[in-house]
């Protein structure tokens, strides 16, 4: 059986390698991908939009609708994760820690509960003490990761980066907080309601920019018409518009990443997990 599988893998690999011989060469100016609109983008992007990074210009301006619906897809992913996994039922058993002594109490009666405050704290079933080295290093690193994420979002139209990447970096910094401390630390800092609002707000910023352009007399997502609203030279107005929608994308991606992580690791209960 293994021999047959090996032969099939080799044949498929050979077939794929054979297929690649008909690909155009690297950087071939006559390849199908670079015959139609690429030349226009390369030559005219700076004149049209004044955004130095024309990848961002293509993604958020020439093909702004595409990116808007991508953001909507990400929002839908977060929504789907919430609807499928979120579990509001109370747990049958509760664990508490008596803070002054460190004794762990296990309440099996689901109706009883202890007041959580100075005396008693919540405790997870599979709790392990957070590692000191991890906690310290993550506490040092997380602010830098977040600053870097904001940098990536803000420089989306000037250098490689943009909303999706910056949002993912920001979301992963929050996930790092949850991993290095515990999930409750994250949930305490950022409420679930706030994350939901952020996820929707990101999409709203993007779509709202488009609608605002409609009100200013242009087409949907025609940033050029926003010139009276924003300061600065009106040539750069399309780059500003890109920045605004990138911020929207970044907020949505950050919130959705965190929602998906929290729901998956805690099986939808938002109380304990990794």
């Amino acid at each position, binding site marked *: 059986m293994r021999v047959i599988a090996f032969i099939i893998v080799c044949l498929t690999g050979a077939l794929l390698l054979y297929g690649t011989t008909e690909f155009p060469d690297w950087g071939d100016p006559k390849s199908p991908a670079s015959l139609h609109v690429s030349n226009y983008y390369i030559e005219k992007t700076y004149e049209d939009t004044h955004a130095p990074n024309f990848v961002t210009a293509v993604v958020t301006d020439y093909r702004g609708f595409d990116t808007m619906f991508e953001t909507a897809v990400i929002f839908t992913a977060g929504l789907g994760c919430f609807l499928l996994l979120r579990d509001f039922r109370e747990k049958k058993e509760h664990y508490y820690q008596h803070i002054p002594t460190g004794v762990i109490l296990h309440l099996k009666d689901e109706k009883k509960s202890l007041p959580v405050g100075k005396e008693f704290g919540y405790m997870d079933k599979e709790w*392990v003490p957070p*590692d000191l*080295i*991890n906690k310290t*290093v*993550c506490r*040092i*690193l997380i602010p*830098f990761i977040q600053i870097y994420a904001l940098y990536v979002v803000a420089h989306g139209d000037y250098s490689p980066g943009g909303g999706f990447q910056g949002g993912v970096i920001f979301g992963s910094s929050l996930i790092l907080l949850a991993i290095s401390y515990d999930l409750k630390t994250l949930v305490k800092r950022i409420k679930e309601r706030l994350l939901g609002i952020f996820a929707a707000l990101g999409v709203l910023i993007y779509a709202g920019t488009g609608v605002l352009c409609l009100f200013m007399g242009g087409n949907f997502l025609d940033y050029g018409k926003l010139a009276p609203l924003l300061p600065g030279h009106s040539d750069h107005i399309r780059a500003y518009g890109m920045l605004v929608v990138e911020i929207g994308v970044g907020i949505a991606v950050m919130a959705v990443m965190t929602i998906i992580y929290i729901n998956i690791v805690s099986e939808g209960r938002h109380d304990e997990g990794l």
Partner: protein
Amino acid sequence: MNIIVIALLVFGLFFFLAGAIGIMRMPDFYSRLHPAGKLDTLATLAMVMGLAVYNLNQITLGTILISLKMFLIVFFVSLASPTATHTIVDAGMRAGLRHWTKKKQRG
């Protein structure tokens, strides 16, 4: 100046190579993490130092700033990489993975 750069780059490459061989050849999980964590940090330090020196061929404010930014990379890598290694080893210990011993001692 170029000699220093080449020496640093070769030094870094040597340690990357040694780390890669170590990951392939070491017998178990914990000892594989040793080259992965330790040599990578040192090799990154040497390589980025080489690149920073290469960047300083004209000493202006701009190149000095770029070299400092490169050292920031080294700083963060040398902060994050040992911590990651420590965490993976810690996870292995908590999951109960036994460390490797020679076969005759095990029997």
